[in-house]
């Protein structure tokens, strides 16, 4: 076995170092000759004679050396190396061709590998947790609203009663102020149910998990911190364990540091601490706040887990009919829950880069065809010298392989850079930090290169080696072009068609963006600064205090020069965010009326003035503890209360402890608060101005909101010295960030499309130039016989443009077929928007004219006499 491998090794060595082999062989054979000569000498021959006789007996010495050497070299391997060497030589002679092909392939393969690396990291690779495929996201499904948060007792019941999960856990988050430094520092804390680390299957890097005592209400305080916080605060050393953090003025000892890769629930998290499930406030089954996860037992399928949890919940429904009867349980893979939003975008991008690669390959195939045609003579000579068709084809394919490998290597370098840019641009993409170039991507690029070789190379190789071409030797150099190169032009047409399709996709996305910008949102996002101030859920127990705190901050903000209004809201207007609930009027509605489904927003009464949402009827609500008021928007009043006096009615969410019934105080204008791309849905505003975690402050400024940021931070610090103020960002930036993925997709698609168009034009230009060069003689003749130069230009131009036109038509047909893939991503334009498609065709035709004009003019400039002399 070992020997066999050695032999293989030596064989390769022999191929690579023929010189060495030769000399070893010669040493061996000359030894033989010398021995023979000595024997003959011993038999009485003279020295000189003996040597000659020995040589003679040996036969043709060089032939022997070669025959023996052949035995040592694996034939296929050597011919590959020979082909490669020949290919290098051939490619070196035509640097322009070589560079064009390598660059084209590098762009194709590079873009493809970069997008594939993103797909691989985000969609394909298993989640980074041990046995991540067994992690699932759970939720309680309530027909009345989309609130999936699970109530603590229910979470514990699910964990205790199921048979399909190893463990179930949950978390919620708060932003905290850490007070041991000079200024309060904002830290994001995840409050976690028991079994949290067990579900993830991750242990602390340093220190330990929480003890059962620490998970009990009234037990000792403890926090786990991120590697990042540990580095920032304690220089990353192990002596962080046992140190204290001052969270909201409570001293919390650090019991462990998590590995750097563990950033859950999101990459902003700084620390984790237990949320005791036996605390008095965790006993209600009515309100839930846990985002819930579970780890399936090995071998349990999703369906089994769903069925099991459903029956557990059904039993709970019988046990607690009031709270649990109408609640269901949802189970979905964690990965699905994380990446569902970007799946379509990524596949669309992948589709477009694959098209780009296809265009690149088609382009190269056309170039190779022209090259093969130029080499017709060389190939014919080889055939006539007895080369087999397969050996000539192998030679041609080797050339493409060399190009493809060089292209892939360069492409990998491009992909490395591209994925770095991608990471920076798509920083909000889930799992984006996992994007990297690893061996899988390298293998993928190699696979691309090989696929490209086959795609680009096979066809030209087959055509170039057609037997009947051997006959063309007789025609010598006097090439008469009989065919009009339909194959090359078909390839160019395909490129144009694909490029049109890509450009149409990019154009539609761009137009959607434009349309989105033109929409009147119904509120004024300019000159509004937003920020957070940390608070804890525990504080919301004292609603009065929480209201006063918020009011005090809002009042002092309003008193600042340069500030015209200030408000608080639980969600930012203009950002995709849905909180739909089912409502009823206390006064009752007829059974026949439609269900009252509405977006729900909690805002301070000053919100409407601050956001400049007009009041259409009634008054702005006032928030006070005893009676809570609500506002509804125009579409709500239209949809559900048409024909009734809306003002004065009471809205209630059945079964909700969070929103008590409220009286409708007024009707406001419709605003696209749930996202610019959505029609304003029926909306109910609960006038609620108590500080709670996640509350957004909205400050309308006279000047640039950014320039007010520091002043506002200092002002709030005066009133609330123990709280951290963070995330001071203009509202318009938030809104534009929320379209970052959309924008990235559009930019990338536009980039791919432009590359595709340039490739297609290079293809058209190259093919036409080639045509001109082979038809020089004909053109020369016609010019000599009196043809006008403009006729020549027109002829070649017409040829190029007819190909481009056919390509455009095919591209439009393709767009019609595949356009609906995009329809979910479009806003304000249909997938067959005539203006966009017309623009695309105009661009492509314009570039095609340029690409055809140059070779056409070159043809017309030929000097007839010179051409005829030369050919």
């Amino acid at each position, binding site marked *: 076995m070992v020997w*066999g491998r050695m*032999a293989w090794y030596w064989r390769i060595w022999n191929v690579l170092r023929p010189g060495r082999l030769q000399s070893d062989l010669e040493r*061996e054979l000359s030894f033989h000759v010398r021995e023979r000569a000595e024997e003959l000498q011993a038999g009485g021959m003279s020295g000189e004679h003996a040597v000659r006789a020995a040589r003679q007996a040996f036969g043709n010495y060089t032939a022997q050396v070669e*025959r*023996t050497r052949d*035995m040592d070299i694996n034939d296929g391997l050597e011919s590959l190396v020979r082909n490669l060497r020949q290919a290098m030589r051939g490619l070196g002679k035509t640097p322009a061709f070589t560079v064009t092909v390598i660059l084209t392939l590098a762009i194709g393969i590079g873009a493809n590998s970069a997008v594939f690396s993103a797909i691989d990291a985000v969609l394909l690779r298993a989640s980074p947790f041990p046995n991540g495929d067994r992690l699932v996201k759970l939720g309680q499904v309530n027909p009345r609203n989309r609130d999936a948060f699970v109530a603590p007792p229910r979470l514990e019941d699910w964990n205790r009663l199921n048979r399909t999960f190893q463990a179930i856990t949950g978390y919620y988050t708060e932003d905290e102020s850490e007070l041991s430094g000079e200024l309060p520092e904002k830290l994001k804390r995840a409050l976690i149910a028991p079994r949290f680390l067990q579900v993830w299957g991750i242990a602390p890097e340093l220190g330990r998990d929480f003890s059962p005592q620490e998970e009990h209400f009234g037990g000792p305080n403890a926090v786990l911190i991120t590697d990042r916080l540990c580095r920032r605060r304690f220089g990353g050393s192990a002596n962080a364990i046992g140190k204290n953090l001052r969270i909201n003025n409570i001293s919390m000892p650090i019991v462990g540091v998590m590995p750097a890769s563990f950033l859950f629930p999101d990459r902003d998290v700084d620390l984790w601490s237990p949320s005791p499930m036996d605390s008095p406030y965790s006993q209600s089954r009515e309100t839930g706040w846990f985002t819930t996860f579970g780890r399936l037992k090995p071998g349990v399928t999703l369906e089994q887990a769903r069925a099991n949890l459903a029956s557990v919940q059904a039993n709970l429904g019988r046990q607690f009919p009031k709270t649990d009867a109408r609640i269901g349980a949802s189970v979905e893979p964690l990965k699905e829950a994380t990446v569902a939003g970007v799946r379509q975008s990524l596949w669309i991008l992948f589709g477009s880069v694959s098209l780009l690669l296809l265009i690149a390959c088609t382009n190269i195939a056309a170039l190779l065809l022209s090259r093969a045609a130029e080499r017709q003579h060389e190939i014919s000579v080889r055939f006539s010298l007895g080369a087999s068709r397969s050996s000539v084809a192998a030679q041609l394919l080797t050339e493409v392989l060399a190009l493809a490998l060089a292209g892939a290597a360069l492409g990998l370098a491009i992909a490395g850079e591209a994925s770095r840019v991608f990471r920076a641009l798509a920083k909000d993409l889930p799992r984006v930090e996992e994007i990297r170039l690893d061996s899988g991507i390298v293998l993928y690029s190699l696979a691309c290169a090989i696929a490209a070789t086959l795609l680009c190379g096979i066809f030209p190789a087959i055509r170039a080696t057609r037997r009947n071409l051997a006959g063309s030797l007789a025609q010598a150099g006097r090439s008469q072009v009989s065919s009009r190169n339909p194959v090359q032009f078909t390839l160019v047409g395909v490129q144009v068609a694909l490029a049109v399709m890509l450009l149409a996709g990019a154009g539609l996305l761009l137009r959607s963006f434009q349309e989105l910008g033109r929409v009147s949102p119904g509120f004024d996002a300019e000159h509004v600064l937003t920020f957070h101030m940390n608070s804890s859920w525990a504080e919301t127990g004292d609603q009065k205090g929480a209201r006063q705190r918020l009011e005090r901050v809002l009042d002092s903000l309003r008193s600042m020069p340069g500030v015209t209004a200030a408000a608080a809201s639980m969600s930012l207007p203009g950002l995709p965010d849905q909180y739909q609930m089912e409502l009823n009027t206390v006064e009752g509605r007829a059974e026949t009326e439609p269900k009252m489904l509405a977006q729900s927003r909690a805002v301070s009464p000053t919100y409407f003035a601050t956001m400049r949402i007009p009041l259409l009827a009634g008054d702005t609500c006032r928030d006070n503890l005893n009676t809570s008021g609500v506002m509804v928007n125009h579409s709500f009043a239209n949809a559900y209360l048409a024909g009734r006096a809306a003002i004065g009615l009471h809205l209630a969410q059945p079964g909700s402890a969070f929103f008590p019934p409220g009286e409708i105080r007024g009707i406001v204008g419709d605003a696209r608060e749930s996202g610019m791309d959505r029609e304003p849905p029926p909306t109910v505003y609960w006038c609620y101005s108590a500080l709670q975690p996640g509350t957004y402050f909205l400050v309308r400024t006279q000047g640039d909101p950014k320039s007010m940021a520091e002043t506002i931070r200092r002002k709030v610090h005066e009133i609330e010295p123990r709280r951290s103020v963070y995330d001071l960002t203009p509202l318009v930036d938030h809104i534009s960030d929320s379209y970052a993925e959309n924008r990235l997709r559009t930019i990338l698609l536009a980039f791919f499309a432009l590359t595709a168009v340039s490739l297609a034009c290079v293809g058209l230009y190259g093919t036409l130039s080639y045509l001109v060069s082979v038809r020089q003689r004909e053109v020369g003749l016609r010019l000599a016989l009196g043809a006008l130069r403009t006729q020549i230009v027109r002829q070649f131009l017409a040829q190029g443009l007819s190909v481009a036109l056919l390509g455009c038509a095919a591209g439009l047909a393709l767009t019609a077929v595949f356009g609906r893939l995009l329809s979910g991503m479009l806003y304000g334009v249909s997938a067959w928007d005539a203006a966009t498609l017309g623009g695309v065709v105009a661009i492509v035709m314009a570039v095609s004219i340029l690409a055809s004009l140059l070779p056409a003019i070159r043809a017309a400039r030929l000097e007839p006499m010179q051409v005829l002399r030369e050919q």
Partner: protein
Amino acid sequence: MGAKKNDILQGTLALLILRTLVAGKRMHGYAITAHIQRVSDQLLRVEEGSLYPALHRMEQQGWVRAEWGQTEKNREARFYSLTAKGRKQLMQEEESWTRLTEGVARVMRYA
């Protein structure tokens, strides 16, 4: 080239080499030729032109292993010895050789 009577039948050269090496001693090419000539009482003569390609092919197939060494006269030579695979190959070739010669002998007897 017409067939001479001392030409070795095609395909039997490998068998002869394997048989020569089976004694276990490592030998260089010249010694192998000499051995075959001597043992066959000069009936068989190994063509140098066939010997070395055969040896190298056998080396590629892993039947023999080659290494450089010194002869008694302190000359550098390439020595060949049999591998386990070669031993197996020898058994097979011996068997088919026996079958062939028996078959040929029978035909000669009855034809």
